[in-house]
């Protein structure tokens, strides 16, 4: 990529000729740049510290074992929300990953980029990736929950979130497929494989790590989403775990939002502790993504 060439200017020959004398303006500019990164990263550190510190008193077994309750914040838990999140995200993965990968294959391997409909597909996906999540909530409310009559179920939530992260999965899949060098395709075709055999046996296996990493990152975005599910009418304080795709449910971000809405101060530790659980789930998924990328990534 051009990036590696363009970078590395820090050891440009000019500095050695200067003999290390730098005017104060240069130094100030550099400090200002470092400060902008520093502010962003220290904000993150303070935020994590705050959540951990305030949540510490409630990071106990009750949090995982008890159901949410508005009455007793000191022993209330988030079990139904944790189970709800796992149900929704599993179903979302089952819906969005196959559709996303198939779209990516079509766009990279079959589509003729000069045709207008393929241009429309491309721009449409980029645009959908930037549509606010609450608008997907409107889609979920108007079309999926009420139009199709699925109501507030694990299934309608999973469909809504699948559509929300689909563009991200497609974009990641396309990048992974594009990174497979053409020599692999030509080699396969030259040996007599058909186009689909080439894709299925050569291109896709090589693109698995990139696709998997991108999909996991997309799903971790879905895990943190509260806004679209609020619109679907997601309830908090559900006292049972989901038992099927048509079951009622709540998820962690929605439950956290409801803990925050409570005016009593003793809900703050509970909200913080639930946030810690959410962040741990995200951390596990991100670590998995990084592990997959490092372990299976091939350099051509």
């Amino acid at each position, binding site marked *: 990529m*051009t990036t590696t060439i363009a970078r590395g200017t820090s050891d*440009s020959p000019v500095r050695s000729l200067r003999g290390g004398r*730098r005017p104060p303006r240069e130094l100030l500019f550099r400090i200002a740049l470092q*400060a902008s990164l520093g*502010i*962003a*990263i220290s904000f993150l550190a303070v935020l994590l510290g705050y959540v951990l510190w305030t949540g510490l008193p409630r990071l106990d077994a009750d949090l995982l074992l008890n159901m949410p309750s508005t009455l007793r914040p000191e022993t209330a838990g988030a079990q139904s929300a944790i189970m709800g999140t796992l149900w929704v995200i599993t179903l979302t993965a089952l819906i969005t990953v196959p559709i996303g990968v198939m779209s990516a294959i*079509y766009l990279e391997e079959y589509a003729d980029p000069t045709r207008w409909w393929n241009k429309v597909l491309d721009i449409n996906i980029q645009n959908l990736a930037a549509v606010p999540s609450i608008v997907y909530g409107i889609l979920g*409310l108007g079309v999926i929950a009420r139009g199709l009559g699925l109501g507030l179920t694990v299934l309608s939530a999973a469909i809504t979130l699948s559509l929300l992260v689909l563009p991200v999965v497609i974009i990641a899949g396309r990048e992974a497929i594009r990174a497979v060098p053409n020599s692999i395709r030509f080699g396969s075709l030259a040996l007599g494989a058909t186009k689909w055999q080439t894709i299925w046996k050569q291109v896709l296996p090589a693109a698995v790590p990139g696709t998997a990493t991108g999909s996991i990152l997309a799903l971790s975005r879905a895990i943190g989403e509260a806004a679209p599910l609020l*619109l679907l009418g997601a309830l908090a304080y559900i006292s049972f775990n989901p038992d099927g795709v048509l079951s009622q449910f709540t998820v962690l971000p929605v439950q956290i939002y409801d803990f925050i809405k409570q005016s009593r101060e003793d809900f703050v530790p509970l909200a913080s502790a639930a946030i810690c659980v959410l962040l741990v789930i995200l951390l596990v998924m991100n670590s998995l993504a990084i592990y997959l990328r490092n372990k299976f990534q091939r350099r051509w």
Partner: protein
Amino acid sequence: MASTRTSAAATPAGRTLRKSRPRYGERLIEGTLFAAALVSIVTTIGIIVAVAVPTVEFFRQISLREFFTGTRWTPLFADPSYGVLPLVGATIVVTVIAMIFAIPLGVGAAIYLSEYAGDRTRRVLKPALEVLAGVPTVVYGFFALKGITPFLREIWPVGDGPAIFNALVAGFVMGIMIIPTVASLSEDAMSAVPRSLRDGAYALGSSKMLVATRVVVPAAISGIIAAIVLGVSRAIGETMIVTIAGGGQANLSWNPLEGMLTMTAFIAQAGSGDVPTGSIDYKTIFAVASLLFVMTFALNLFSIRLVRKYREVYE
């Protein structure tokens, strides 16, 4: 499959270059893949239909004039009034505050990562910045409301200070959330500037800061603007931070220390109740959502076009 190719090659020269027989299986697969790609088109159509139909019904009952020029927003009250300006005003206030923080910090971080940081520093700092983008927005809202606002109210030097729900803290936290969006797209644009431009400037005796500010930034400007526009679009569409920390009362005011209701916060607030389908309240949610969708859609398309432009120049 391989054997059919071999036999095809054995036939007279005229046939070898032509397809020996149509492959229906392959066509079927291509069709299936195309159908999967169509899901995203169907999604867009679904969104447009979902917001447009109730919106049209809304404007049968409420005049366009009242909606776009009215200054009172009290749709859920006994004496309803449907002037959307307070919601748009609140969205603008919060977005401007967010961008006041996100633009300098995001572009600054991008210049540092692209022009100053060594390889090893970048490998540590970039993922850290990406973590900031991965934190769920409820968490930002919680931190704004329970962490920053009380602290700010305590140390506020003059006057009354910010209200418990206020636009300032919501906007600030949102600005921090948007830094990674602005930084990563801007850095892509700066990294795409060819090294020869930098070398030319160095050869003329420019300092490092001059190269960054007079050569790299102007050369990457369309990408940087695209990043900023995308950041604005995210700020307008961000929901949970303003719902939690921004306040729940429509308020046509430019004072960021007051609470105000943005378009997204109204949608979340009204939509999370059990609104009967087809009622005027239900249609109101969709009317505001249409406005939000049109605004972000226009910004996104503008941003995508700008990115294509700089890609054409340097890649």
